[in-house]
């Protein structure tokens, strides 16, 4: 890789916008960032004086905290915007809320919202701000997919032809969508499985294969990713009960024993113990869930750094 690069993106809204080179650059930068987080002084002055605003219109502790730590480790100033304490409860519109925040001149907005496309809408409305999508509705969660990829590469080495299985509520999962897009872009072989009611019609368009059963899905997998069963997204019962889900679709210790001995288990969190994943599997030695969390900070530091330092003459 050359000594310089021009990261041309102003925003990170979707994994689809990234080229393979962009992804490789993010991962390489994240490796350096991870080193910083292991030092005694976990801070570098790279983003000193920049202000970052967390605009989380949807509940989150893990992602919000991860972005906050990432910004602070780069010496940026970060403010958390909490909608439950805001004028949104008095009926202010999203755009008005964001315009008000914008008047405080942030350099970057990190947006999570239950409406798909809101981060894009914000990016289109506000000039001179970088918008990072921290999860929009059922659309995408690009930083999660990037940290998942980073973790896979860290443990498994290469991504090309890596066999990755996604298990669970694929239809409602923005984590699933971002992962499918990113993994296929980087040449991995993706298999999905879940209850028929939670598999999108024509999911093969993402370049993935649908397995007939959990056992089929995980038999040859190098990476097994368990998606959270999202009770809050289900307006109608997609399966009779969580017990039945666990029995037919959960990653139990027994099911894990029938996989390749070096296959790893991932989960974006938070984990529903005993539903999509057995507690002993989540806590077991094949699971890299905590590594994902550590890598999340490194990857988010990399993204904030690259967006803040982008070539300002050519912006997307």
């Amino acid at each position: 890789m050359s000594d310089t690069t021009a990261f041309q993106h102003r925003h990170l809204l979707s994994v689809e916008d990234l080229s393979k080179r962009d992804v490789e650059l993010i991962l390489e930068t994240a490796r350096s960032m991870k080193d910083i987080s292991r030092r005694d002084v976990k801070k570098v002055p790279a983003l000193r004086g920049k202000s970052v605003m967390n605009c989380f219109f949807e509940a989150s502790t893990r992602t919000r905290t991860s972005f906050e730590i990432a910004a602070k480790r780069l010496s940026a100033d970060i403010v958390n915007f909490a909608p439950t304490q805001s004028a949104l409860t008095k009926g202010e519109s999203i755009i008005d809320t964001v315009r008000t925040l914008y008047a405080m001149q942030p350099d970057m907005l990190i947006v999570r919202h239950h409406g798909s496309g809101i981060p894009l809408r914000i990016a289109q409305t506000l000039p001179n701000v970088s918008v990072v999508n921290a999860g929009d509705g059922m659309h995408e969660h690009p930083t999660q997919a990037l940290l998942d990829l980073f973790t896979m590469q860290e443990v498994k080495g290469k991504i090309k032809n890596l066999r990755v299985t996604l298990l669970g509520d694929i239809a409602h999962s923005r984590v699933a969508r971002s992962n499918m897009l990113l993994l296929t872009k980087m040449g991995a072989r993706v298999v999905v499985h879940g209850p028929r009611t939670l598999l999108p019609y024509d999911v093969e368009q993402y370049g993935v294969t649908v397995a007939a059963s959990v056992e089929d899905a995980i038999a040859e997998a190098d990476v097994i990713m368990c998606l959270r069963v999202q009770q809050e997204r289900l307006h109608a019962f997609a399966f009779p009960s969580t017990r039945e889900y666990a029995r037919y679709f959960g990653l139990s210790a027994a099911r894990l024993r029938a996989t390749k001995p070096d296959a790893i288990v991932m989960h974006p969190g938070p984990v529903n113990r005993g539903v999509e994943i057995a507690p002993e599997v989540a806590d077991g030695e094949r699971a890299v869930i905590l590594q994902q969390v550590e890598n999340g900070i490194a990857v988010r530091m990399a993204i904030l750094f690259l967006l803040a330092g982008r070539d300002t003459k050519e912006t997307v």
Partner: protein
Amino acid sequence: MTRARAVPIEKVLMTAQQLARAIHTMARQIAGTCHAEATPLLIVGIHTRGVWLAKRLVERLSGQGVACELGTLDINLYRDDLSEVAHQPVVRRSELPLTLSGRAVVLVDDVLFTGRTARAALDALIDYGRPHYVRFAVLIDRGMRELPIQPDIVGRAVATEPRHNVKVQLVESDGKDQVVLQELR
């Protein structure tokens, strides 16, 4: 009609032989002036070419019986010009002991010019702990400082103008050893 791009005029400042002698001189100076007590002397190369030079110095010094260790440092997160550079530098990993507290450190770079890289390197080092001391070794000092930074060990000093560019070429990264002076017109 397209204007032909101005081709810089190049003059060789140091041949491979002269470069090797300069490194030899630097190693001798380091051995003579940089003493370490309990732990080995830490020779830290600044990415990218500083690293290759540091490696050669470690080889020389080890050959002379001086206990030393190689480290590498990427200073791109400590630069003062991140929002101004047209092309963003790729951040590489720094390989340093977890803590530098109490260590004798020699920072190595290929060319010393404005001094801003050295300033960034010092800031980066301090974030790894409190070194016993830091000495600064450069192959070429081309003058024109913008900060109060001076080298302790110099391979060769060259008087230059703002229109000059001094390029150190090394076998490891450029296929050959030489130092050229480019004149940009």
